[in-house]
């Protein structure tokens, strides 16, 4: 069976919602960060797939993916730094226990 665009889109959609589900249900910040990476990766897959199937003569989608990977790496570094600082002050990385920033 040949793999069509629809298969790949199905995969990326599934990946996206797994990421969303992880983001909303996990209490551990590291896990939430990983969920965000899943969402980003589903977007990357979309870019590459559309590029390959619809405009094979262009490389725009691939370039975007490279940018997103770089930004995701930077974002992960920042997020982990925040999490480490949070751990130092709160002795936990549970997102439920950091509710000071409210009304």
């Amino acid at each position, binding site marked *: 069976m040949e793999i069509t665009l629809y298969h790949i889109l199905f995969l990326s959609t599934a990946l996206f919602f797994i990421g969303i589900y992880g983001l909303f249900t996990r209490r551990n910040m590291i896990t939430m960060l990983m969920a965000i990476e899943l969402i980003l990766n589903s977007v990357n897959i979309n870019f590459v797939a559309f590029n390959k199937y619809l405009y094979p003569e262009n490389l725009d989608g691939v370039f975007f993916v490279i940018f997103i990977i770089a930004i995701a790496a930077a974002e992960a570094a920042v997020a982990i730094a925040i999490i480490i600082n949070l751990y130092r002050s709160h002795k936990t990385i549970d*997102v439920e226990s*950091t509710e*000071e920033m409210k*009304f």
Partner: protein
Amino acid sequence: MNYSNYIAWIPLLPLAGFLILGLFGRNYLKNSSGIIATILLLASTVLSFFAAYNYFFIDGKIDGIYQSLKPVNYAWLKFTDTLSIDMGITLDPISVMMIVVVSFISLMVHIFSLGYMKGEERFSTYYSFLQLFTFSMLGLVLSSNLFQLYIFWELVGVSSFLLIGYYYDKPSAVAASKKAFIVTRFADLFFLIGILILGFTANTFDFNTLIQSLSAENSTIVAGSFLGTSIITWGLTLIFIGGAGKSAMFPLHIWLPDAMEGPTPVSALIHAATMVVAGVFLVARLFPVFAITDSGALEIVAYVGAFSALFAAIIACTQTDIKRVLAYSTMSQIGYMMFALGISNYGEDGAGYTAGMFHLFTHAFFKSCLFLCAGAVIHFIHSNEMKDMGGLRKYMPITNVAFLFACLAIAGAPPFAGFFSKESILHAAYESNMLIFIIALITSALTAFYVFRLYFSIFWNKEAHLHEIHHGEGTWTMKIPLIILGALSLLAGFIPFGNYVSSDGKIMHGHLDILFSITPVLLSVAGIAYAGYLYIKQTDRPQKIATAIGGIYTAAYKKFYIDEVYIFITEKIIFNLIGRPAAWIDKNIVDGFMNLIGNTTTKISNAIKGLQSGKVQGYALYFFGGVVGLILIFEYLWN
């Protein structure tokens, strides 16, 4: 000689003095401030005399008519091509006469104050205020348009306020200064409306243009009418109300007696000789409009003036504070000037105009002389009350003579200054309005009575109980102005005033009729003699008379309860019927509306603040929900 070279310095020198003394006086010029102010004013006075000499004797006349010159004019606020508010200087007979009077009296007061105010804590402040006043008053009389006059009008009001409240640690002085300011401001409100009406009707504020366009025979101005009276009459009446406030005409006179709380030289300068005649000056300035438009406004001026003259003279007979007697006397004399203008016509029959201006001129000298003498007496005896005085002629010979001269002048005894001016007023009244003439005659007799009551009570009567004579009559700086002003009270009347000042600039021949003068002079002599009979020795006659006429005496002594009427009107009527409802509306409706807005905002915020929970995943959910919602809207509901 070109006036524009120096004329502006006449008001500007006192302004410079005000700035210098106001900024540096307290700290650096504490002892020299009096001298600095006096020298600046001396320069200004010399320039005034020079300008007056040039104007009256050299180049003011063209074809025998005094012209209205405008040597300085500077367009300040330009609204349209025709309508602008300028800052300028007008020279015409009355303004030139006024700058001479104002600067000269002010100079006398400056010199007198060198001795009188010596050792005061705020000596330099006092002089800076005097300079401010002189600047404003000179600016007022030189103004070339109504709005400029109004600005200076307010400035003299402010400097009067500052000087009345000079002894600001005395509650009565503070109350008096507030009273003076509020009453004159109240009148100035009407003045402003009047200015706007006249300016709107004539489409200009400039005096010359305004007079020309409003008083031309075949005027093209189409003035509407309001309540059956032409709009110009309304404007003129409103302007007269402003003038009446400043000139203490009934019923806006209540501030003047209280204004005597200020230092006595200030009373001499502001509340006797210069500022209070600003109202007369204003009517004289707009006189062609008043006279030629043939409106009822001039009649109002005449009757208000005549009534104030009589009213104040009656009160003056009963007061015991010597400065208050003089204050009511001032009011009475200003009433004279007012009705003299009021009964006058323009041009040939303008005898009243010339007489009123003449009286203004002579009154400035003898009244400031009276006040300065009163100042010297108060300085000597440390009291304002007649009962503390008596027999002072032995201790204060110069003051005695100067005071006597001024009293004779105000009583209208020939050949003192007041005789000439008062006779010309009476003559003008005799020829135009019998009722006012009779009022004026009675007032004239009363005037003679009350000033000589004052004179005899101070300088004759009983011996004052002087605890110790620790100083003499005063310094020479206090005596010199008294001598000069006393001499002028004798001499100022000999000036052929009609040659210089008249309503249309032509020569006005005064007629001094010996036969006519007999009645007023006899009445004055009778007043003097009666005052002598009652007060030259200490007797119980005045007391008996006061008891005999009982109610009238008490009413006059209480100033006919005008103050009480004002208090009743303000506190019972205005406060209760207008003030309190307005306060209620402000508190409940205006504030209530604002509170409603505030409270609603608070309630809504309280209701929705739970959304900001601090839970990061909650926020992410809102965001995601929002994105999904937007997608749904754009996908299915849009279009």
